[in-house]
């Protein structure tokens, strides 16, 4: 009998610079340490049946990740939460979780279509005004073309398909930005790429390497409604 759970988890400061693959492997090992009856795939290289919503880049932390895990037997949910909490490495914590149907339930990957980020962006002294103006120009633009580069090649995209606007609040040493990014079946854009666009095309006076990005939410969005993948 197989049982599935969906859990909200974090990727905190301690594991900010861990890659997505390494983050997943660390969770797998932690689950193995708990001795929970995890389900494995068949074959020579069996892997644990866990699934995530969308990959986080190296350097990006998150307050709201989700993972589905399949177990081969019934476990007491409270005991499962405790077991995981005791074995997960620093920075990875379990939040809310609930049992989901073992079959026929939409996969995280398929339903999550919006990610929210908070970006701390240090600025050179006295440039906050220029920065806000640059962001204003981005928000006002109808189309922003950008050449996305990845190992597979180059692709021209319109940034505005994914990010309508960037909200900026001045803080002590720079700005705090809030960005919502659409995730579509054909692609998305990384928050670090949004910063690059702001710097390169709109003259934002910042060094993109210094941006500290944290994902604050992953949602199933429809029009103006945003619900957590735990509540669908």
């Amino acid at each position: 009998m197989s049982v599935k759970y969906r859990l909200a988890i974090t990727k905190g400061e301690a594991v900010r610079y861990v890659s997505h693959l390494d983050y997943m492997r660390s969770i797998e090992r932690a689950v193995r340490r708990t001795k929970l009856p995890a389900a494995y795939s068949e074959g020579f290289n069996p892997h644990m049946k866990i699934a995530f919503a969308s990959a986080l880049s190296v350097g990006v932390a998150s307050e709201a990740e989700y993972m589905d895990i399949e177990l081969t037997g019934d476990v007491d949910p409270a005991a499962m939460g405790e077991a995981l909490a005791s074995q997960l490495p620093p920075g990875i914590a379990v939040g809310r979780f609930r049992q989901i149907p073992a079959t026929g339930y939409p996969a995280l990957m398929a339903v999550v279509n919006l990610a929210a980020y908070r970006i701390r962006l240090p600025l050179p002294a006295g440039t906050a005004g220029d920065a806000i103006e640059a962001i204003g120009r981005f928000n006002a633009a109808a189309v922003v073309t950008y050449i996305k580069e990845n190992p597979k090649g180059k692709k021209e995209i319109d940034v505005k398909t994914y990010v309508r606007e960037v909200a900026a609040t001045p803080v002590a040493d720079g700005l705090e930005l809030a960005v919502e990014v659409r995730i579509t079946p054909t692609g998305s854009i990384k928050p670090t790429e949004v910063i690059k666009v702001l710097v390169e095309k709109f003259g934002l006076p910042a060094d993109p390497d210094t941006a500290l990005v944290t994902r604050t939410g992953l949602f199933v969005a429809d029009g103006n409604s945003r619900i957590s993948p735990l509540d669908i």
Partner: protein
Amino acid sequence: MITIPPAVLSRVAKPARYTGHEHNSVVKDPAGVDAAFALAFPDVYEVGMSHLGLKILYHIINRRPDAAAERVYAPWPDMEAEMRAAGIPLHTLESFRPVGEFDVVGFTLQYELSYTNILNMLDLAGIPLKSADRGEGHPLIIAGGPCAFNAEPLADFIDFFVLGESEEAVDDVAAAVADWKKAGKPGGRRGFLARAAAIPGVYVPAFYDAAYNADGTLAAVTANHPAAPPVVTKRVVADLEQVAYPTKPVLPFLEIIHDRIMLELFRGCTRGCRFCQAGVLYRPVRERKPETLLRLAQELVDNTGYSEISLTSLSSADYSCLKDIVGRLIDQFKDQGVSVSLPSLRIDSFSIELAQEVQKVRKSGLTFAPEAGTQRLRDVINKGVTEKDLEEAVGAAFRAGWSGVKLYFMIGLPTETDDDIKGIAALARRVTDIYREVKGKRGAKVSVSVSSFVPKPHTPFQWYGQNDMAELERKQQLLKTLFKDRSVSFSWHDAHVSFLEAVFARGDRRLGEVLLAAWRQGAKFDGWSEYFKFALWQEAFREAGVDPHFYAGRERTADEVLPWDHLSAGVDKAFLEREYRQALDAAPTADCRRGDCSVCGVCQGLGVDIIDWGASS
């Protein structure tokens, strides 16, 4: 505490190498301990984290309430550049304190080509490179590992070396540091070194003077301090059952080289291959009990969550209860999703049977090391394997479903002729033929890897003059012409690298200046082909006025004083000489663990015995 700016971490490759917080890492309050050790590995994180010896030291030191051990690895050059630009000193991954603030910095010496990384790490830590230039506020710089058995090229830089197995020695060193500090550091650094020199296995190079003959050979290395013994003898653990094993290893986030549980079945090897330094340094054979191994394996699985157990030893197939332990491990762990792997296999069909057993859980490649291409040369090196053994093993492997094997060889061995080189190609061809005989078709994937022989201290071949680079390259080219068949892929090691290894393996104190010169010109990560620059080393030898061929290519006479004669692995020099003569006669010496003792001196001199559970049951 050092914090690395996000901008730095976002610019370097694999930043998780530098951010710590790994599961099972031990973070102690530095104020609460008397002896703080920074355990340094002079290579990148993924290599250093894979090393069992460091895991053992980390565990043993941290077990002591009065001591702490933290880890530090060589930053990759991209990170080094960032650290230098931002003024970030070398620091540990636990408390993120500068390495310069520790009581002791301990380096593991696995490979001669990591020496420049040691200098680079000391420099990054802001610690004077030469022992003589360090003051009372600086850490004690110590080193251990196989290369410590010829410590001389590093004599200027390391305050003291620990020879041999460290499980018990490191406790002695930690206690000595704590006592000395609590006593108010009487005598300062020199006072401590005098205390250290009294610990068995500890070598303080500053307490010895080297004198040379007119022809440049060593005249003598003599003690100049009352605490320094004339010969320093290695430490050995009499019974592995009695020492702690690291069952809570630090679990990396990054994928490291050996990213699995390492279960050490036994230590030592008595087969007596005459080129093998480890075979001498880790004598005699001492096995762990199968029950102990099962218990350790369970603890390791529970504490790590790893899905693979690798059985490690110099030659795991020689473990006397191997079939028993493999079967029991598979039984115990198959429902936990944990597989078992055997990394080093001897050439025989018994191994294939076992490999098949292990296969049930996980597919892995097969590797054989005949080392030489002809029976004559295999007799010279005392590799007790015949062509028939190889044929049977490979045949069994192909019948069991494998389609590829990897074969390891060496060129430049004593007495080698071109016929022996041709024998390598012939043996590889024989393997492809066997595949055709077994399968009735072509298509075996045979890869042949050829390294160049490096004569190592404390081995029967320590006197042998290495083939010069032109000769090694000629032999590589000859082999290349013999491997026209595409079914065999052929790779070889850079002769320049092997040459430099030989220089430092058999070097003396005069090489310290060469190391400094090479490091100043930017040598680092010499073991990585993308960073190895031979021209820079040639310049360093010129600058220091040192002829490298004097060390690598010169056949040494039996009466020559060797730079490591005052450092003993417990094996008699007379035994090594006898073995060298036997080699030149292609006369074999039997494995001493079941047959006759060949009186190498280890068991007699160190008061230890072979421990072999299969033989005793």
